[in-house]
Each structure stands twice: as C-alpha cells, then as structure tokens.
C-alpha cells in the first residue's frame, strides 16, 4: 500500500511507537504495562512501517534478522533468572536487587532484565511471524 500519507505518517509514528513501547516496558513494574505489551507495541510499530514502506525497507531498517531477538531475549531472561544461583546461591528466579534508587527506573533488579528479555522475545517472535507471512508466496 504505497500511499504517501501512510508512508509519511508511519515514518513519524515509528519512533513514537518505539519510544512508547519502551515507556510501557519500563513502567510495567509500577503501573500497567511490562515486557509483553511493550514488546507487542514495538512489533506493531515495525509492522505498520512494513505496511507503508514494504517489507524490504523495514528489514533493512532493522539490519539484523528479527529472529535473532528470540534467542537473545531468551538468553537475557534465562540469565537474569539464573543470576541468583550464580551470584547469591539462591533458587532460580529469586529477585536480586540493587539497593538504592535509580532515577527513572526506580528499583533496579534482575526482574527488570527479565522483563527486558520478555520484551525482546515478544518483538522477535511477532516480527518473525509477520515478516515470514508477508514474504510467503
């Protein structure tokens, strides 16, 4: 759908949506949101872009295969779940927290990294699925 209006709008919506998705991701621990919704919004942003500009453009924008985000995100989540075993001898998934207030984010702990992993996986999964379908004959 190569319409000028959609293309232009999507070029401006893309960064806004991405920003919004990270906003949703980071506030998740305190307010509605989190890795899932955040990831979904980010993915939707790219999907919108691909509708407007064609898949090729969106892909070249990403520079790497979205599929790569899946193992990366899984690894991030997995290791943040594993970190208490490695660093504290606590059971899997036990929260490790930096004691002190970090601006913007509030408390920083393994849960945050876990949620980031979720975010990456969701983006990777959604984009892989949708891009694959779009490319399919």
């Amino acid at each position: 759908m190569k319409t000028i209006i959609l293309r232009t709008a999507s070029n401006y919506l893309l960064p806004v949506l991405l920003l919004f998705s990270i906003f949703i991701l980071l506030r998740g621990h305190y307010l509605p949101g989190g890795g899932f919704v955040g990831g979904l919004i980010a993915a939707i942003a790219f999907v919108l872009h691909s509708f407007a500009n064609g898949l090729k453009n969106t892909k070249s924008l990403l520079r790497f295969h979205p599929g790569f985000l899946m193992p990366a995100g899984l690894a991030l989540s997995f290791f943040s779940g594993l970190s208490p075993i490695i660093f504290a001898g606590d059971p899997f998934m036990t929260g490790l927290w930096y004691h002190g207030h970090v601006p913007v984010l509030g408390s920083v702990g393994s849960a945050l990294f876990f949620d980031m992993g979720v975010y990456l996986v969701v983006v990777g999964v959604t984009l892989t699925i949708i891009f694959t379908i779009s490319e399919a004959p």
Partner: protein
Amino acid sequence: MNIFIGVVITLGTLFVLLAAVGLIRMPDTYLRISVNTKAATLGVGLLLGGVAFYFYDLSTTSRTFVIVLFLFLTAPVGAHLIGRASYFIGNKLWDQSKMDDLRGKYQRNSHVLKSEIDDTPEDNVDHTKM
C-alpha cells in the same frame, strides 16, 4: 469546577452520540468515514479533557494528552486508508453526490493514482462501469 467538567464531558458525549447517529444516517461509506473521524475524535478529546480536569494531576493529564495526540495522529490516516480501499472495492458514492473527480484515476492493478485521466481506460477504477 465540577460543573465545568460536567459541561465538557456532556459536550464530548454529545459529539460521540453525534458520530454514532451520523454513522447510522449517512448514506454512503465516505460520508460515514467523514463523520466518524471528526465527531468522534473531537468528542473523545473533550471527554478526556474532562477526565484530565477531574483528576487534575500530572500523570492523568499527560496520559489524556497522549491519548488525544495519538487519536489525532492516527484517525485521519485510518480514514484515508479505509476511504481509499472503499473506492477500490467499488463502494459507490451517494446518488445525490455532485461530482466524482476520482473516477477513472486509479489503476486497477498497480493501484497507481493519477492526477489526470490518461489513455488506459480499461485499467481504471470506474464505478460507473461496475
């Protein structure tokens, strides 16, 4: 203050209602799109304005602001797309419409939109021929 909020909200609600009635009453798809995009966007904008004033704190205000902003950004694009698609799938204009400058300008297969009618009529989207 509450009265002011009440008025704003009432206005917003009326615009939403207006859009709904418009959606029912308008005779063709393009007119419905028209009503939808405007009245509802304005109505919801007003409603959310009321909400912002009601809570009167920064977080609510910024949220309502963001919602309205997003609506204003996306609604017209959506309207454009669905209007365009309607034209392609052959939704006719209301029979009392005055003119259709778009007739014969879309190319059926490439979906290219021309500014003037050219000499490839068989490929053009023309509702009168459908």
